[in-house]
């Protein structure tokens, strides 16, 4: 192990132990470790942004004497200057122009993307499960495929009804019809199962990270004995 690797390992283990001190209710060492992480990340991010974004995308095109590149670079330059003006009280209104541009563009992209990339393919996929070639093998019905298709359809419909809040108003309370309540309850079961699966995954990911860190610490300690 080279000296630089050893120093890096010691720093890593020290920081890991500082984070672990949160279990004992410690705020000081945990705070130092997290502030160090944030500070280093912010510094590194600033360097990368300057080197990989501002210089190649903004400054370099401005050095072009001719061509559309120069004029195209004026657009982000102007928008950036307007954003910087938001730091001053008098420039708040001007800063809303690039923000509005950004918000509008992202909203349009999100709507198009969700429609083309998720909603339409997922609906088609659900419908496709009821295609005869999926449910029948020669002349025999495939009961497992039929059951799976029905369960998926039930899940989709039931979960949609969980978010259906329309109902009759009685003395200030919105009362949903009984059958909607029933389907909604089934939908809640599906949502619960999904959250359960997500929780297991979350715990599993955290456990893998913990085991890796512990293994490294144990390997380091056993190195000296």
């Amino acid at each position: 192990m080279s000296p630089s690797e050893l120093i890096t390992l010691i720093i890593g283990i020290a920081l890991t132990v500082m984070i672990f001190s949160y279990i004992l209710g410690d705020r000081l060492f945990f705070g130092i470790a997290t502030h160090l992480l944030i500070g280093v990340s912010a510094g590194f991010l600033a360097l990368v942004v300057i080197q990989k974004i501002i210089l190649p995308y903004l400054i370099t095109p401005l050095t072009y004497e001719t061509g559309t590149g120069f004029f195209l670079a004026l657009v982000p330059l102007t928008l950036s200057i307007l954003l910087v003006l938001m730091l001053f009280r008098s420039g708040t209104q001007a800063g809303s122009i690039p923000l509005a541009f950004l918000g509008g563009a992202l909203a349009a992209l999100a709507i198009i993307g969700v429609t083309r990339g998720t909603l339409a393919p997922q609906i088609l996929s659900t419908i496709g499960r009821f295609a005869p070639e999926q449910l029948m093998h020669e002349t025999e019905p495939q009961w497992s495929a039929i059951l799976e298709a029905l369960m998926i359809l039930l899940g989709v419909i039931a979960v949609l009804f969980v978010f259906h809040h329309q109902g009759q108003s009685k003395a200030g309370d919105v009362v949903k019809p009984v059958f909607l309540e029933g389907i909604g309850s089934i939908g809640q079961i599906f949502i619960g199962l999904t959250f359960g699966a997500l929780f297991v995954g979350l715990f599993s990911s955290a456990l893998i990270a913990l085991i890796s860190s512990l293994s490294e610490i144990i390997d380091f300690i056993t190195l000296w004995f």
Partner: protein
Amino acid sequence: MPPDLLLLRDQQDRASLLASLIEQEGRVTAGKQPSRKPSGRAGRLAVALLLLIGLIVSILIGPAAIPPETPKSIPAIALSDQIQALAENDQVLIVLDYQAATSRELEALAAPLLEQLHTRGAELAILTTQPSGLFLAQTLLAQAGLPEDTQVDYLPGSYLSLISQAVNPGISTTGGNPVKDLRSFKLVLLVSDSSDSIRGWLEQIAPWIGTLNFAAVTTQMEAPVLSPYFDSGQLVGYAAGIADGNIGVQSTFNYRAYRVGLLLMLVMLLLGMISKGEADAIRREEERSE
């Protein structure tokens, strides 16, 4: 009048209450003590210590690799098939989009795949969408046995910076955009700890380029969200979780500790559910008696 001589039960109760009140007249009685809610700190500490001790003991026993017969998931097999189907010199775009916290899990999954791609002679273009990916990539490349001088480029804005190129291939890329022609790739392998990011690629880039196949390597937590995209064919495969990274010779990760950790948490969850149920029952009983 003695209470026993009264006819009705409630008359007897009232008489007994009156008798006890008269008996306690003039005595000093302690006021009602405010109930102190347990902070739960001791419980958390016990759970953490139990988990740590269990894991440390499991690691100290010795290395334990994943059994080779552990089955892979269907999406992981599909991903493997896609890689096998690639020909020499086929271009593959690798997008690294993860943070240090999940690097161990993702590197264990992605490194064997990168090695496989490299062995098959595929031309790899590696991008990172996060600044920290520039140095995290070095570990991944070393694990995969790729040359040290392999170029890793930073893609600011992730898929958003490629939309114009995806929509209209005639639009020339400006500045230092590392991707010159998105359509030249056979496969895009997204190594990401965020299903939102993977969904972004599938929503914003995939619909415009029908010939481009997308695959993913992600954490076990994000896998359930990606499942519908695999079912609909938008993802040709994905790998997630310990079993999907099993290549038979993995010795760095202690599988025994992983199983012990899962078992301990399962026991603790069950105990927590039982104790919560009991506490709720006691509280309801107290509310009813009041």
